[in-house]
């Protein structure tokens, strides 16, 4: 069936003629599609590179042939090989009068080149010319290119023309001009600081596409300077209302939801504007409540909007009715069979926790299920939730789980993150010093190399200086249990060296009992260079502590 389809398509294409693809192109695609190994694919591509090199260097190639060669060049790079010998032809093609050729040239340039590439300077002129074209499709092609290729240096060359295009009669030009201005803001905010009012104006554009596009730069602006845009809360609420009430053209519907992607952008903006602001939040409550009520939980996009509403509710000043509605929605997510919805449920739960801590307890079982799920993504999200849920009453259970999880992680970047979280929680909520030392030791044992050495030093200092226990006996008991556990750990064959160092430091401190203060001073002064410290210790201490000399020497030999 698949083969028949292929043959049918080939026949159809063969009959196209003109700028339909050549047999050579079809053969290339077919052979790439049929390769069974990377080696085979590489051979085909290398052969193709040779072909293209000779074809591109021969003069008088018909333009539509050149277009095909450019696309074949795109393939070459997509499959991992360098095609820089052909870049200049992409640049040349942008000069062409024919729209399809020009746009292909621009596409090739944006895929091949980075905005800082030397060849870009050759294109800026073309872009400037095309921005002034009578054909709005040519202007659009140039605006697309602006958004990919213009950098801080070249902004002045095109800025005036782009600003003019914000008032173009064609809505698609206005939309792309807004995005071009957005690009300038991203690359050099100062270059458009006097033009910000244009974004406010385009928000009120008749065309929903232009309005929708303007939400992108406005979001960025509001993120940086939320206070300057509080006056727009009412406007955003009104727009969201219109969208939710289906007043936009039907072409923006997706799976029966009216312009859902625009709704989501608006909800994100309203979250920013209402966050920490009671007055602004009050203006937003109604529309969010309406959208939650009308939401369609049977479709993915409906749930996506619902989730965004929950995120919004968690940013706004607390509103009991909305929080209740959000909690209901979360329950449904967590009870769902879909892992995607469970994931969103866990994420939403961790956002609501700071406002309604009791909500976590209500869903304890569901959370534990997610924790034990073999799906890594879900597990990871659930651990993020646990981290936010930790308090003194549950820290032991949670950190215990986290450490086991940490041990199972292979990715060192992520392992470090979890190790740091464990340390943070242990430091913040430890119910007893005994538990604290044990926990820290476990973390060091399994992720000692990854944990910040400052943490190790802090721990050692804590043990050396004592925990401020009133009872000396308790203090020294803590120390001896610490010493015991370190001695045991040092016996194990494979140990991260940073941890080994820490162990020995602690032992040095503890074994000397009465003289721990002395030792601590030495430790403090040599904390930078272990080698030095060892030597000093070996020379000086036996004189101070004759009774413990043997132990000392044994220890020091073990570490050097």
């Amino acid at each position, binding site marked *: 069936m698949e083969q028949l389809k292929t043959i049918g398509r080939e026949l159809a294409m063969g009959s196209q003629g003109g700028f339909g693809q050549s047999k050579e192109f079809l053969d290339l695609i077919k052979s790439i599609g049929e390769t069974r190994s990377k080696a085979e694919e590489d051979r085909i591509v290398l052969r193709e590179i040779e072909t293209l090199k000779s074809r591109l260097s021969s003069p008088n190639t018909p333009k539509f042939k050149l277009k095909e060669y450019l696309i074949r060049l795109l*393939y070459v790079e997509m499959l991992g090989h360098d095609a820089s010998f052909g870049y200049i032809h992409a640049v040349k093609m942008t000069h062409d009068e024919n729209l399809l050729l020009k746009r292909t040239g621009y596409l090739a340039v944006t895929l091949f080149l980075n905005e800082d590439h030397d060849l870009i300077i050759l294109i800026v002129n073309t872009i400037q010319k095309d921005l002034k074209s009578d054909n709005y499709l040519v202007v659009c092609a140039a605006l697309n290119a602006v958004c990919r290729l213009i950098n801080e240096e070249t902004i002045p060359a095109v800025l005036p023309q782009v600003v003019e295009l914000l008032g173009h009669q064609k809505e698609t030009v206005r939309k792309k001009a807004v995005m071009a201005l957005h690009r300038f803001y991203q690359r050099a905010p100062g270059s458009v600081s006097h033009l910000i009012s244009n974004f406010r104006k385009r928000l009120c554009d008749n065309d929903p596409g232009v309005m929708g596009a303007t939400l992108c730069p406005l979001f960025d602006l509001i993120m940086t300077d939320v206070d300057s845009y509080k006056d727009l809360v009412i406007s955003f609420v009104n727009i969201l209302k219109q969208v939710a009430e289906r007043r936009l053209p039907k072409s923006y519907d997706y799976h029966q939801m009216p312009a859902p992607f625009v709704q989501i952008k608006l909800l994100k903006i309203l979250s920013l504007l209402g966050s920490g602001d009671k007055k602004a939040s009050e203006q937003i409550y109604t529309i969010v409540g309406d959208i939650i009520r009308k939401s369609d939980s049977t479709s*993915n996009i409906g749930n996506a909007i619902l989730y965004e509403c929950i995120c919004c509710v968690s940013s706004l000043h607390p509103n009991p009715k909305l929080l209740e509605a959000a909690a209901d929605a979360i329950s449904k997510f967590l009870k769902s069979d879909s892992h*995607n919805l*469970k994931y969103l449920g866990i994420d939403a739960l961790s956002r609501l926790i700071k406002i309604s801590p009791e909500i976590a307890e209500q869903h304890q079982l569901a959370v534990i299920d997610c924790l034990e799920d073999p799906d890594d993504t879900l597990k990871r999200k659930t651990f993020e939730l646990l981290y936010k849920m930790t308090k003194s009453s549950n820290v032991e259970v949670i950190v215990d789980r986290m450490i086991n999880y940490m041990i199972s992680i292979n990715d060192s970047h992520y392992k470090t993150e979890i190790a740091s979280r464990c340390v943070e929680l242990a430091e913040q909520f430890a119910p007893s010093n005994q538990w604290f030392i044990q926990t820290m030791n476990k973390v060091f044992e399994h992720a000692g190399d990854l944990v910040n050495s400052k943490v190790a030093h802090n721990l050692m200092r804590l043990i050396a200086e004592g925990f401020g226990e009133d009872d000396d006996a308790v203090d020294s008991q803590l120390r001896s249990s610490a010493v015991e556990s370190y001695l045991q750990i040092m016996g194990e064959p494979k140990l991260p060296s940073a941890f080994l160092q820490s162990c020995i430091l602690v032992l040095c401190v503890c074994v000397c009992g009465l003289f721990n203060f002395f030792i601590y001073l030495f430790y403090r002064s040599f904390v930078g260079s272990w080698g030095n410290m060892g030597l000093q210790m070996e020379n000086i201490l036996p004189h101070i502590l004759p009774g413990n000399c043997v132990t000392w020497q044994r220890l020091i030999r073990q570490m050097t």
Partner: protein
Amino acid sequence: MGIRFVLMVNKQGQTRLAQYYEYLNLEERRALEGEIVRKCLARNEHQCSFVEHRNYKVVYRRYASLFFLVGVDNEENELAILEFIHLLVETMDRHFGNVCELDIMFHLEKAHFMLEEMVMNGCIVETSKSSILSPIQLMEKAS
């Protein structure tokens, strides 16, 4: 805001379309594409359609032999991006009629033009299928 890349990679790890909104050189792209496809292939259809990668996320969706992979910043609504992928496929469907991997291979530039209309500066900018396709249809007619 947003989208770092849009990739279409088949299950053999061959890239059929690659659009990066943050520049990566050839070496980096190859490494990234290989890594991500491997990660997604290791997952089954009951698991989440999102996967953590480095310090961002990849939302993926499989259609027959082709994986659609979208790299997004952590603030993005993952389910919405999942549906954006579907919107892209529906749009290509409307243009090509029952789109398949071969269509994208034979008409790579068209697929790119569609994506160019939909995503700019890493943001979703156009979601009306008629607005996305009309410039492309006009261009075909003019030529």
